[in-house]
């Protein structure tokens, strides 16, 4: 097929050359302007982030050491550590990730692959999207009445994980649905044509292809959950605890609670401890996210 501009080369101009080049020039200029607008957006976001990181690292950097990670909180800032909070947050993560993965991805698979396209289904989908916008403290109230009191789980790390897990579910479901939807129909058809059942197709073909998108959703949702304070305070999580959890019914505290507590202290040294706590929380998040990104890339390359 002949390219359009081959006709120009032949000298057969259907349009006025000047008008065309003028229009193109203005489009190109607009193109250039928007490039810089978007770049400015990115630079602004990065600037805010780097200011925050600089502030935190300059205040707290000197306080992060092995003692800080291994000690219990103390009234003497020099001896204080966040060991129970760190362990509590790791427990929460270990419980939340499998929970939202199994329930969230399960719900998404049902909605995308099995549910009939009718009003009930779209009603459910609209409500899931709405849940994603519910303030976290509301999930805390739900956790208090349902998990703490009705179910009798107490102020345990299980209650914390269930509450934060519920809070993350809408984001995980919506992201997983999006990922499942973007898997090419041809892949499903090819699998079905080879005689695979619907379940075999979903589990062996669709799910692995959708996994990168699903993992991105889980990273976002769990990162948000791990940084939450309000719902944990609501369900009665401790601020000081003299032990670390040894099972899912143990009492616990978590990093954001410890950080929040330190920021509200009158003494300036505790503000530095809070900054040090933020560094630890960021490191935990980055480590978790890197692991998830590693898994994601493995699957992206395969499909």
């Amino acid at each position, binding site marked *: 097929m002949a390219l359009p501009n081959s006709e120009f080369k032949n000298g057969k101009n259907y349009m006025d050359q000047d008008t065309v080049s003028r229009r193109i020039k203005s489009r190109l200029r607009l193109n250039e302007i928007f490039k810089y607008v978007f770049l400015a957006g990115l630079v602004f976001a990065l600037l805010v982030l780097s200011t925050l990181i600089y502030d935190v690292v300059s205040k707290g950097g000197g306080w992060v050491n092995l003692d800080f990670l291994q000690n*219990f*909180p*103390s*009234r003497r800032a020099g001896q204080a550590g966040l060991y129970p909070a760190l362990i509590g947050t790791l427990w929460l993560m270990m*419980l939340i990730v*499998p929970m939202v993965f*199994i329930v969230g991805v399960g719900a998404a698979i049902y909605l995308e692959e099995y549910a009939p396209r009718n009003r009930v289904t779209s009603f459910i989908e609209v409500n899931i999207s709405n849940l994603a916008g519910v303030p976290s403290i509301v999930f805390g109230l739900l956790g208090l009445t349902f998990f703490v009191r009705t179910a009798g789980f*107490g*102020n*345990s790390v*299980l209650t914390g994980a269930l509450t934060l897990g519920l809070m993350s579910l809408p984001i995980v479901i919506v992201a997983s649905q999006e990922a499942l939807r973007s898997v090419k129909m041809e892949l499903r058809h090819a699998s079905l044509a080879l005689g695979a059942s619907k379940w075999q197709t979903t*589990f*062996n073909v669709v*799910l*692995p292809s959708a996994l990168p998108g699903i993992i991105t959703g889980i990273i976002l949702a769990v990162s948000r959950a791990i940084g939450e304070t309000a719902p944990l*305070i609501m369900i*009665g*999580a*401790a*601020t*000081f*605890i*003299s*032990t670390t959890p*040894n*099972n*899912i*019914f143990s*009492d616990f*505290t978590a990093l954001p609670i410890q950080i929040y*507590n330190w*920021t*509200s*202290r*009158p*003494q*300036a040294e505790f*503000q530095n401890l809070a900054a040090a706590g933020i560094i630890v929380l960021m490191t935990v998040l980055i480590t978790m996210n890197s692991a998830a990104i590693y898994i994601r890339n493995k699957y992206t390359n395969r499909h």
Partner: protein
Amino acid sequence: MSWMKKSALLASITSVALVGAACGNNEEGSGAAEGDALSGKVVMDGSSTVFPIMEAVAEEFSAEQPDVEVTVGVSGTGGGFKRFVTGETDFSNASREIKEEEAAEAEANGVEYTQLSVALDGLSIVVNPENDWAQDITIEELNKMWLDTNVKTWKDVRDEWPDEEITFFAPGKDSGTFDFFSEAVMDKEDIRQDAQLSEDDNVLVTGVAGTKGAIGFFGFAYYVENQDTIRAVQVDGVEPNHDTINDLSYPLSREIYTYVNNASLQDKPQVAAFARFMNENAAELSEEVGYVKMEDSRYDDNAALIDEQAGE
């Protein structure tokens, strides 16, 4: 996904479930009655004002009794009492006395309790350091300026003061500090609506430090730590300091409390041990975290109250 991955996933789900089932019942282990080593739980919740003292007590107590699990929450004075009156917690820390409604609810639930005073705090009235006129203020003037929205400038409070606009900073309405101010200064009336409220006292410090005409109030420790950016005003001619708070001559001196569940004191040896330990060390530890200790006799009174409930 390969079979290996699937079975690994199944195995991990099963193990989580098993751990849950196995550990469901050993939650309520109460303290060993004989010997020195205690176990079980001591559950505290309540005021963030009292928290630093209790954190210090728990820290020292854990060094002596490592097998006792002590948890201290900060739901606020009111939030703490909500849990306390249902019997959920052993101690409820409070920066004001228990309210009638709360006491009634405790009675309805059959929860009996003992009030223990822990330390003293002086609610400090603070202004910006550039404010060189307000050296002292009376309770009446405070009442007027925090109540009457017609008061716009310092001149409206006292004629000799300049025509500088007043900005108000106060702790959040859920805090015991707010309740205390409302009772001691406002005759239980609400403060003016245009006051800026914050749950975080450090935000109030920043606000007062950054506004020339500002006035605010919060606990003594926040004033002591920020003396270079804010200034305290004498109230009825008395300045807040360690001595005036200790002998209660500062008009806005207040006691801070912890309430202990009597049934816990009687049945849980670890709770009785914690209560005694707290009472013995509260004076020293509260000074260390920025509060003022009470007269020695007050701690003796506490000890008698604890003995009465827990038995000697």
